[in-house]
């Protein structure tokens, strides 16, 4: 098949460039490693705190939590802001120390700390519970001391026990809010690997358009037309070659990260489908770029800017949950957002193919639109 011969040439053109090995293998590995290091184990979970006039005891509770050094404590000034931050994933959990906390406790009343959390924010929860328990202990001792001054050790013990039972102390009421955060219990490299897979498949596809531009610039593409080869075969061959580049990049990252970093990609069929459909999107974009530009020097900077821009918008640099609403809506215009959501579903929530049909459909539509536009454009540039 002649289109296969053409596809083979596209791959040869690309893989004969030594620098591409760096950009396709070493570079993604470094980035995934880096992300794993930053957001993996070294990452401190965040806790949002709302202190609405709780008094000295409330203040000391918050200081105690902060002093644990296990959490990044951020203060919020109103409850809506705190809850929305939890829902967005900006903080893993939120703690509300109620108004009059200090007074209630001193008066022997029972104070309730409200704790908003996403499922899986265990670190924050245990930190708050530990701090609260400590405060309880202090209180018990205080009561114990108080009673000791009045009574004998035996009586004091009994009184302490009684006091301990009677001490209403601090209770923590946990409210779960928002959707389960994906990647909650996955490996430290999993999220980075999937977002970077999309970033790199796209950027490698677009910079791979250099092969097509070279063919056009050198006149080899037109020369192909002077042979008994129909223009559609040439276009198809180019598409197959560029798809090959995209899928190679995807497989390098998928297999490489699984082997080196132990990344789990979830449902294999689902992951393969996301990779293929996303690669088709990259192929369409690459061919469009390759048919629009006359020189590689013009196209490569555009390729890099577009790829990084779409990756940033589409949640391949910063997770989508952190985006404000308008940005999240805008993100839907990027294929990356859909790819990231599909991987979240597969890896983070152990979803199957059935749960990513919408994402696959949207990516398929992106691919179809870009590929047909590119094919039409390339056909035209070749034959006029």
């Amino acid at each position, binding site marked *: 098949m002649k289109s296969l011969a053409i596809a083979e040439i596209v791959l040869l053109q690309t893989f004969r460039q030594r620098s591409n090995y760096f950009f396709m293998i070493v570079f993604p590995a470094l980035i995934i490693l880096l992300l794993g290091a930053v957001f993996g184990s070294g990452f401190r979970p965040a806790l949002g705190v709302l202190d609405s006039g709780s008094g000295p005891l409330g203040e000391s509770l918050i200081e105690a939590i902060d002093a644990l050094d296990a959490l990044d404590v951020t203060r919020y000034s109103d409850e809506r802001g705190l809850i929305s931050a939890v829902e967005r994933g900006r903080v893993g959990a939120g703690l509300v120390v109620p108004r009059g906390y200090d007074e209630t406790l001193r008066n022997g009343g029972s104070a309730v700390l409200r704790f908003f959390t996403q499922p899986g924010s265990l670190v924050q929860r245990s930190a708050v519970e530990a701090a609260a328990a400590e405060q309880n202990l202090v209180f018990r001792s205080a009561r114990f001391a108080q009673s000791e001054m009045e009574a004998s050790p035996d009586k004091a013990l009994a009184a302490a026990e009684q006091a301990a039972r009677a001490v209403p102390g601090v209770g923590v009421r946990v409210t779960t809010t928002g959707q389960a955060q994906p990647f909650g219990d996955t490996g430290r490299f999993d999220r980075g690997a999937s977002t970077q897979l999309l970033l790199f498949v796209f950027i490698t596809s677009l910079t791979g358009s250099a092969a097509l531009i070279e063919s056009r610039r*050198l006149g080899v593409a037109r020369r192909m037309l002077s*042979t*008994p080869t129909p223009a559609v075969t040439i276009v198809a061959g180019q598409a197959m070659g560029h798809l090959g580049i995209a899928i190679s990049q995807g497989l390098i990252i998928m297999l490489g990260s699984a082997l080196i970093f132990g990344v789990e990609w979830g449902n294999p069929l689902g992951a393969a489908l996301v990779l293929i459909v996303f690669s088709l999107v990259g192929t369409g974009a690459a061919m469009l770029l390759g048919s629009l530009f006359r020189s590689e020097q013009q196209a490569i900077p555009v390729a890099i800017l577009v790829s990084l821009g779409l990756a940033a918008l589409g949640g391949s640099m910063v997770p989508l949950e952190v985006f404000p609403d308008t940005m999240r809506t805008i993100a839907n215009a990027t294929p990356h957002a859909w790819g990231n959501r599909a991987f979240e579903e597969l890896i983070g929530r152990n979803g199957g193919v059935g749960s990513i049909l919408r994402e696959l459909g949207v990516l398929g539509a992106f691919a179809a639109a870009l590929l047909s536009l590119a094919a039409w454009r390339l056909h035209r540039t070749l*034959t006029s």
Partner: protein
Amino acid sequence: MSSRFDASEASGLHDGGRPVLECRGLRKSFGSLVAVNGISFHISEGETYGLLGPNGAGKTTTISMVCGLLEQDEGEVLLDGTRFTPGSVKARAGLGLVPQELAVYPDLTARENLRFFARLYGLRGEDARRRIDEVLLLIGLTERADEVSKKYSGGMKRRLNVGIALLHRPRLLVLDEPTAGVDPQSRNAILEGVERLADEGVGILYTTHYMEEAERVCDRVGIVDAGEIKAEGTHRELVDIVGEFDQIQLTATGDLAAAVRALGEIGAVREASVRDGGIDLITVHAPDVLPDVFAKAAAANVLVRRVEVKEPNLEAVFLHLTGKALRD
């Protein structure tokens, strides 16, 4: 130097041959620019036809239409007597194009480049392998066949560029300035190859702006300027159309003034003058006049030591036709 321009030889050899290519009234504009303005010519089996013209004359545009890479606005192309359009895919099997640019992959070896195009020409397996070896030998790249082509010299790249178009033994070979920027050695190799193919019966369309090349390899030449063929024919015919004269320079001793008077009486001699150490003559067709010249000079007791005949060349013809030089 043996010339392929001899009128009798050219017409004797090719007039009876079937036309491999026929172009009728080709016209092509790019916006308001008329690049090709009604070009017609034909090429027979074994004939080498040259399009000689300066930069921007419309040579490449014509070739693109001949090869079906560009749709003409008007006119038609017949390949082996059959109408040829950009949609005619099968007919391209009879066509070999050597583009003006180096249309080879620099990161691939000569063999890989050839193998790729062999597949596009429909050659497969053992046939393809054998033919690739033959072509490599033909273009003198056997030794370096497995080196990436970007490491080749300009001449070697040009030869590879030509070789690709020979893979499928086309009936019509179209060469667009195949020797641009090469060393004399490679140029000679390419020209010899073209001559050999013509001897084997391949029809050849050869464009160049090198007058010497057109004179050497072409049986007939069309002089193109501004999208039109200004004149067409064998070298002799072209020169005769323009009515150019030959210049004969005699190096001689004796009574040169008397000799000049006598020589001036020969009908074909238009002008005769004494020059330091010799005589200059302007004549119609030098080969016909030379016997008379020798006779008259001898009669005038002038000893002729050396004769130099300067034929008018296509450069002069071009100058005459267009009022400008072929190359600036």
